[in-house]
């Protein structure tokens, strides 16, 4: 149990390695599925080809679609593609990058299935046994076309084959399996070469642009998670404050403004902090209409990617006009090379 937990934590620590983990699991599942699947060639001229090729081609399509379904980033891609422009431009290269990385991961399980099928040879044998050149494997001069085709179709089935003295079944099987394995190795070489071209040669062309698209696609993913987290926290605080207000309105007492904490009682301090931090977590959104507006605008009008500078109290809307006793004097300057705090003078009403 411990081992699984550790492996799970390691995989979840990084979004990319989690996706790679899913990808690896699907590849193993595809190999296991092939080995547990009982291949059953019909050995009839009309159906051999469709069955053989169907077994080769349809499960990969299924695995590819399953890869898309299991990948969390698909909904993120769709959302980013369909959203209105809002205050933030759309970058087509980021969309393309996200689509490419999703497709690449989804293509691994189908490739494993096709490779294993070709290396094993059964489906190739089933599909192409009727296209064999019989002169190499035996003497079939006395046979009509139809009889010959029916005999060839029975080659994949050891127990049904009844032409041992005419045609050497083992030699024909061996030949077809050899061709199938050759195709399998060529297919593997081709996809490895393609992956090599894409991965190793790509830095020659677009390295700087690549760093940018990688950053922004990762950013979109994290932003979505942060938004969900913030909404959850907001909902919790909203609910707490709402319930508190309701109780207060029933009981008639106002507890908010008379907190002079001269004596330290730990519980009261904690309550005070918790209440304050709940208020803080509300981030100023205190009504249903406001929250609805937040959620609506998040999709229809995404904010610009530009942060305002924060002042020390964290409340950007407190008027920082001087002259009034007790207000903070201006806000801290954020300069790139020096630390934020400066020589400051603080007036307080003691």
């Amino acid at each position, binding site marked *: 149990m411990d081992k699984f937990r550790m492996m799970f934590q390691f995989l979840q620590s990084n979004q990319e390695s989690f996706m790679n983990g899913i990808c690896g699991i699907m590849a193993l599942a595809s190999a296991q599925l092939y080995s547990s699947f009982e291949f059953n060639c019909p050995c009839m001229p009309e159906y051999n080809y469709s069955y053989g090729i169907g077994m080769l081609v349809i499960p990969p399509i299924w695995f590819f679609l399953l890869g898309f379904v299991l990948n969390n980033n698909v909904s993120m891609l769709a959302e980013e593609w369909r959203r209105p422009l809002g205050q933030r431009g759309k970058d087509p290269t980021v969309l393309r990058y996200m689509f490419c990385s999703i497709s690449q991961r989804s293509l691994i399980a189908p490739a494993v299935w096709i490779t294993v099928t070709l290396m094993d040879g059964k489906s190739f044998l089933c599909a192409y046994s009727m296209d064999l050149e019989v002169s190499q494997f035996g003497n079939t001069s006395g046979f009509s076309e139809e009889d010959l085709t029916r005999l060839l179709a029975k080659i994949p089935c050891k127990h049904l084959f009844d032409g041992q003295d005419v045609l050497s079944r083992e030699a024909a099987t061996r030949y077809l399996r*050899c061709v199938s394995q050759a195709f399998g190795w060529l297919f593997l070489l081709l996809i490895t070469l393609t992956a090599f071209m894409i991965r190793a040669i790509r830095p020659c062309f677009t*390295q*700087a642009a690549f760093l940018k698209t990688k950053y922004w696609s990762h950013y979109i993913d*994290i*932003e979505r998670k*942060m938004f969900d987290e913030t909404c959850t926290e907001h909902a919790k605080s909203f609910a707490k404050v709402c319930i508190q207000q309701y109780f207060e309105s029933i009981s008639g007492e106002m507890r908010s403004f008379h907190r002079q904490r001269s004596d330290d009682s730990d519980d009261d301090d904690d309550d005070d902090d918790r209440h304050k931090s709940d208020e803080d977590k509300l981030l100023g959104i205190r009504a249903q209409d406001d929250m609805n507006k937040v959620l609506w605008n998040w999709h229809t009008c995404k904010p610009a990617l*530009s942060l*305002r500078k924060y002042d020390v109290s964290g409340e950007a809307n407190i008027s920082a006009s001087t002259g009034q006793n007790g207000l*903070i004097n201006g806000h801290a300057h954020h300069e790139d090379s020096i630390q934020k705090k400066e020589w400051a003078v603080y007036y*307080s009403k003691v």
Partner: protein
Amino acid sequence: MDRLKLVLQYFQSNSESISNGICVILALISVKLYTSFDFNCPCIPQYNKMYALGVMFVPPIILFLLGVLINRHTGVMMEEWLRPEGNRAKNPAVVKYLFSAMMQRALLAPMVWVLVTLLDGKCFICAFSMSVDPKHFTGMPNTTGLDLVRILAKVPCKEDIIFRNTTFRKAVSRYLRCYSQAIGWSILLFLILLGAGARLVKPCFNHAAFLQTRYWSNYLDIEQKLFDETCVLHARDFARKCVVQFFEGMREDEVVRLPLSYGLRPRKGRAEDEEEEEEHLHGITRQEQVDHLLHTWHQCKPELDVTKIAYRPKVCITWEDHNGHTLFSDV
């Protein structure tokens, strides 16, 4: 469990040892692939050699390409080779060192495949059974009506009926397997001698320069990793602030003119937390700034000089009340 954790930690501590670990795993995968692959000699004169040599040499090419792909140093090397010079001069010795390290690691799995193939012998028998001189072996079946080449081509196939009552097939197979194993062991011996010789002789040639190139290639790898990590932390912080800013922008503007109540005073703990959080932003707060930063990282890498940041002066704060008495001081 603890032991496994220790082993994993050891391997992850050093980027070179990670590459070594991956290289060994790929070699083990190559052995496993060979044992699970069902070798299937066609036993037909025209195709034997092609099939057998294909099986002996195509998978090593695939394993080599995989080895290059999986290696982290490939990306580091390509980036260092292709980047514009910027503020940092390029060192060709580092690129050469990275290239040779990558090549050595990528060549291990193909070599393992070729050696396992030769030591097992099936490929060799399939490819060269027709080149054997049958006069050295007794019991060749000559009643089947097939010519010599075809009979010899069928030697790798055990089940064939023409060899049922003779020892010819077994004798030829044994001879060819022995040949194949001899070649395999010689190649292994040669490779080991080459490796040992290179290791012994290398310190004689310019060891000091070697230490420098090894340091700087390790540095490049670590720098790349740290840049990626910093980008990730930055994106996280950027996203958090962007979302909070979005929420706050939705509410109605309030202007509050109150005396500074207890609740609105900056608490030291909170300010410190915010400072820790904002550390990740490093002043980069807009999309154009991020784009410019990423573009410059590749086009114009910074010089290798961190004196300014290592020795930057710490700013101290003193709080005074209106009479000039010190309330609090960092000094």
